[in-house]
């Protein structure tokens, strides 16, 4: 089971959790599993069945866009970070 960190703006969709668990051998499987476990979250970050354009996905600190995208390998020990931009400087 991998750990998925949820950004503050998406925590409502994850029942308020700061991180959740999901499993999969690659990013696609992981996001599919995440969608089953947390449908509201899934529809935000994997609604179109592809990588979301405004949320970056990092597997163990590496941007999956610079790796193999949805095919990027995920391990049980991996930490996945979902990261949207934040505008605030307020």
């Amino acid at each position, binding site marked *: 089971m991998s750990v998925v960190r949820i950004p*503050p703006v998406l925590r409502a969709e994850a029942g308020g959790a700061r991180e959740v668990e999901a499993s999969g051998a690659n990013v696609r499987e992981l996001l599919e599993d995440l969608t089953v476990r947390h449908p509201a979250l899934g529809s935000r970050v994997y609604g179109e069945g592809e990588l979301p354009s405004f949320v970056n996905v990092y597997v163990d600190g590496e941007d999956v866009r610079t790796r193999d995208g949805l095919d990027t390998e995920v391990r049980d020990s991996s930490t996945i970070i979902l990261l949207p931009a934040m505008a*605030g400087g307020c």
Partner: protein
Amino acid sequence: MATYRDLLARTKDEISEVDAARAQSLDGALWVDVRELDEWQEGHLPGAVHVPRGFLESRIEQVAPDRNQEIVVYCAGGNRSAFAAKSLQELGYEHAHSLAGGFTDWKRNGLEIVMPRTLSPERRTRYSRHLLIPEIGEEGQLKLLDAKILLIGAGGLGSPASLYLAAAGIGTLGIVDADIVDETNLQRQIAHSLDTLGAPKVDSAKRAINALNPDVNVVTYRERLTSENIDRILDDGWDLIVDGADNFPTRYLVNDASVWHDIPVVHGSIYRFEGQITVFKPKEGPCYRCLFPEPPPPELAPSCAEGGVLGVLPGIVGTLQTNEAIKLAAGIGESLVGRLLLLDALATEFNEVRIERNPDCPVCGDHPTITEYIDYVEFCAAR
């Protein structure tokens, strides 16, 4: 008992004393001026480093870690440097030479000297804790005093950044902000105070900066940054930008302009307990659009005014930005170029992810498709 003259004569016998021509023929030699500060300030040899005789033994390893290096030490007339060369020999420096005739003969023979830029006694005192750090020292402090840094926003991030940059002696600080100070700002925006409620934030910040350090030249732009005014503002010649904007259109505008003007941006953003910090340096790393090609839809991008922010968070993130800005201005250390630092203040946890330049980036990529300012409000609303 030996007199001074005996000791000097004996020391000169034991060391290598070279004339100017021989000294100049030594490849890659390190030139060390062992005179006192006031003598150094009246001129020195080109490329020399200043290590007063009294500190020679304790500081030489910092400037000459390699014991095999050729070293030419000089003083005013060649006597103090003879003793200095002897000390270097005893420390294991095998190629230490004393310059015969010292600075006086050098100058008399019409050879090149340079007048050092130095700090006034007042500045030497004010910045003494910087001067003591080898990575900064006088040279680094002079770079900070020469630096021109533009702050986008005088709010949560801009407040601590402006105060610490001012304290550090950044010579010129520009501040862009159209807002006025209100009571809800005072929970975190430490450049402002009850005294400046209702005042333009740029004026309030300028007051705080100059109360801390009147050395700093503050240039205020009481306007909202737009496609129409950004070129004019950037044409004032800023070395780097500290981005503390509070909305996406400004973030993308600052990004595009910084790429086109070739100005590094120290980026910080915050929300509730979370912060993101990085450095976007044109040509050396990714830009903001490489990291975030698109802003989130509005419902996923609440402002602090809508969602709140822990008061100290901009203090932490703003000072981390300042750390990056000072290092860039002094030309030292490892910057956050290519790394995005993530802070979770609730867990007190830092994470770091790698970020790369996107060759397909519409602004900084190999074949840019955006080459002039766009409608940034529309771009950010269209999501």
